[in-house]
C-alpha cells in the first residue's frame, strides 16, 4: 500500500500506459475480455488521479523525481540546487485538473463501450483513448517544460487519430488533419520557446526557471509564442477554426474528452503565465490580452453557434464560447495580480470563478455531447432540421440534455450558474462593460439551446423515428455519472469551491510556494 501511495504520480501515467500497451495483445488473443479490460484500466487510472488529488489536498504539493535513488530530493546538493531530472509537481491546480479529467474519462469509457460495440478497429481505438487520458494527466502534472511538450504531442496526435475514427467518407479524416496541422504548429512553437528559455537558464524545470526569471527580450518572445501556441490548443478565438471541424466529426464520447484535452492547453497557459512569468511581466498588459481573447472567444463563438444546423458543430462553437469565460475570469485575476487590495476584493473571486468554470464546463459539455451522441446513435441524423419529437421515445436522454442545456446557460440550481455568477460579480467590479457582455452571451447561449431542445425533443412523433428506442444502459450510466456531478456542484457550490477550487486558485496566485516546494532550501 505504501508502494502505491509513495509513487502515485508515476502510477498516474504508468497505469493507463500499461493498459494501452497490453490492448493490442489482448485484442489479438483474448478479444472477449477487451471491453472489461478497458473499463478496469480506466477505472484504475481514474482512481489513481482521484487519490493523487486527495493526497495533494490533504498533504500539500506533491513532488516526484523520476529515476532518482530512494531518499534523494528534487534538487540534489551536489548539483548546486538545480533539479536536473524530470520532476512531477502536482499542486492544487494540477490536482483540480486531474479530478476533472478523471471524472470525464471514466464516464466516457462506460459510454463508449456501449456505443462503439458494433464497430471495427476497437483495439486501436481504446488504446488511443487510454493514451489520450495519459496525455492529459501528464500535461497537468508535469513540472518540466520539455516533458510538457512531449505530453502535449501525445495529446495532439492521439486526439487527431481518435477524431478520424469514423472516417465518414473522408470528412472525419479531413477534420482530424486540420486539427493535427494546427496543433503540430502550436507544439513546435512551444518547443521553440522552451529552447529560448533553455538557452538562457540552462534548465527545463519550471520552478527553477521561475526563480531565475528576469525580463529580457528573449523571454517576451518566448511568452508571445507560448500564449499563441497554447491558445491554439485551447481553441480560443483567433485560432478556433480547427476546433468545430474536429469536434463535429469525432465520435461523440471522444468529443467529450477532447474538451478536457483542450482545457489541458488552458492549464499550460495559466501555469506559464502565473507560475513561470508571474513575478516579472507587466501583468496589466498581458492580463488585458487574455481578457480580449476571452471576450472575442465568447462573442464570436456564440454568434457562430446560433445559425448552425449541424447539432455537434453547434455544440463545438459553444465550447469555444465557454472557453472565453474561463479566459475572462482568469485574465481579470491576472490583470490585478500586482495589486493586493484589488486581488483580495475581486481578483481572487474572478480566479475562482474562471477555474470553477473549467471543471463545470468539462462536466456539462461532456454531458451535452454524450446526450447528443445518444440521439445520433439511435437516429443516425445530425441535422437539426430533420430531427424532432424524440422526447417521446428517449426520455432519459431528453432529461440529460435538458440538464446540460440549463447548466450551460447558467440557470440555477445547476453548476454553470454557480461559476458564472462568480465571474459576473467579480468582473463587474473590475469593468462593468465586460460583465454585461458576458451576460448577453449567456442569454444568447440559452436561446440557442432552447432552440436545439425544442427542435430535437419536442413536437409530435415523426414517422421515421417511430421505432427509435432508448440507448443501452451503459451509455445511460456514463451520462448519469456526469449528471450527478452537474447537479451536485450546482447544489453545493460553496463546499466545492472551498474544498477544490480555492486551493487551485491559491496555488496559481502564490508563485513562491510552487518554487519552494521544488527547490526546497536552495533559495
Amino acid at each position, binding site marked *: 500500500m505504501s508502494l502505491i501511495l509513495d509513487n502515485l504520480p508515476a502510477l498516474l501515467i504508468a497505469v493507463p*500506459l500499461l493498459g494501452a500497451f497490453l490492448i493490442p495483445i489482448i485484442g489479438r488473443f483474448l478479444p472477449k475480455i477487451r471491453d472489461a479490460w478497458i473499463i478496469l484500466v480506466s477505472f484504475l487510472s481514474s482512481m489513481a488521479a482521484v487519490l493523487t488529488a486527495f493526497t495533494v489536498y490533504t498533504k500539500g504539493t506533491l513532488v516526484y523525481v523520476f529515476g532518482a535513488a530512494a531518499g534523494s530530493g528534487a534538487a540534489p546538493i551536489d548539483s548546486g540546487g538545480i533539479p536536473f531530472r524530470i520532476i512531477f509537481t502536482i499542486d492544487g491546480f494540477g490536482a483540480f485538473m486531474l479530478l476533472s479529467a478523471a471524472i470525464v474519462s471514466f464516464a466516457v469509457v462506460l459510454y463508449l463501450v456501449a456505443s462503439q460495440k458494433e464497430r471495427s478497429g476497437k483495439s486501436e481505438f481504446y488504446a488511443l483513448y487510454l*493514451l489520450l487520458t495519459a496525455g492529459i494527466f501528464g500535461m497537468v502534472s508535469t513540472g518540466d517544460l520539455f516533458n510538457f511538450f512531449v505530453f502535449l504531442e501525445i495529446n495532439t496526435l492521439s486526439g487527431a487519430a481518435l477524431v478520424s475514427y469514423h472516417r465518414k467518407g473522408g470528412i472525419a479524416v479531413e477534420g482530424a488533419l486540420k486539427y493535427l496541422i494546427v496543433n503540430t504548429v502550436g507544439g513546435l512553437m512551444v518547443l521553440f520557446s522552451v529552447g529560448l528559455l533553455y538557452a538562457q537558464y540552462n534548465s527545463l524545470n519550471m520552478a527553477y526557471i521561475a526563480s531565475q526569471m528576469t525580463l529580457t527580450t528573449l523571454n517576451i518572445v518566448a511568452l508571445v509564442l507560448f500564449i499563441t501556441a497554447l491558445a491554439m490548443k485551447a481553441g480560443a478565438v483567433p485560432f478556433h477554426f480547427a476546433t468545430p471541424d474536429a469536434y463535429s466529426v469525432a465520435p461523440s464520447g471522444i468529443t467529450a474528452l477532447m474538451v478536457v484535452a483542450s482545457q489541458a492547453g488552458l492549464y499550460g497557459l495559466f501555469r506559464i503565465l502565473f507560475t513561470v512569468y508571474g513575478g516579472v511581466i507587466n501583468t496589466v498588459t498581458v492580463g488585458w490580452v487574455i481578457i480580449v481573447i476571452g471576450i472575442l472567444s465568447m462573442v464570436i463563438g456564440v454568434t457562430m453557434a446560433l445559425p448552425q444546423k449541424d447539432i455537434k458543430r453547434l455544440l463545438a462553437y459553444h465550447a469555444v464560447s465557454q472557453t472565453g469565460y474561463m479566459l475572462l475570469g482568469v485574465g481579470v485575476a491576472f490583470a490585478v495580480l500586482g495589486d493586493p487590495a484589488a486581488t483580495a476584493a475581486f481578483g481572487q473571486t474572478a480566479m475562482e470563478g474562471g477555474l470553477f468554470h473549467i471543471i463545470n464546463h468539462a462536466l456539462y459539455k461532456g454531458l451535452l455531447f454524450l446526450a447528443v451522441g445518444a440521439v445520433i446513435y439511435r437516429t443516425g441524423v445530425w441535422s437539426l432540421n430533420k430531427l424532432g419529437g424524440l422526447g417521446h421515445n428517449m426520455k432519459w436522454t431528453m432529461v440529460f440534455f435538458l440538464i446540460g442545456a440549463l447548466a450551460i446557460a447558467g440557470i440555477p440550481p445547476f453548476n454553470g450558474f454557480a461559476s458564472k455568477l462568480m465571474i459576473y460579480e467579480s468582473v463587474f467590479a473590475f469593468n462593468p462593460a465586460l460583465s454585461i457582455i458576458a451576460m448577453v452571451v449567456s442569454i444568447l447561449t440559452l436561446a440557442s439551446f432552447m432552440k436545439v431542445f425544442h427542435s430535437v425533443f419536442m413536437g409530435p412523433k415523426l414517422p421515421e423515428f417511430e421505432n427509435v428506442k432508448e440507448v443501452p444502459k451503459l451509455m445511460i450510466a456514463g451520462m448519469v455519472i456526469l449528471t450527478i456531478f452537474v447537479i451536485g456542484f450546482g447544489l453545493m457550490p460553496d463546499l466545492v469551491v472551498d474544498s477544490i477550487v480555492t486551493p487551485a486558485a491559491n496555488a496559481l496566485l502564490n508563485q513562491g510556494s510552487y518554487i519552494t516546494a521544488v527547490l526546497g532550501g536552495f533559495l
Partner: protein
Amino acid sequence: MTDSTSIFPKKVVIVLVLLITLILLLPAAGLTFGDPATTLTDQYYIDNSQVQTGANNVVSAIVFDFRGFDTLGEACVLFVAVLGVAMLFRRVRK
C-alpha cells in the same frame, strides 16, 4: 472571422510571415553562437553521467536515465502514430 481553412489573402500572409521572421531574428541578437550563457545543468550531466549511470555516451545517459521519462513519452507518441495509421487503413468487416 470566417470559417476558412488555409485560404488567407496573400498580402496578409506575406506581412504575417515577415513579422514572424523579424520577431525570430531577436534571438540572434540576444544569444551568442558557440558560447552558451550558463552550462550548469549540462556540466553536471557531463561530470556525473559515468558515476550515476555508468554510460560512456552522455546523450544516451540523458535520454535513458536522467530524462528517461521523456523517452517513454516519445515511444508513446510513436505508438500513437502506429495505432492511428492502423486505424485509418483498417478494413471494415461485415
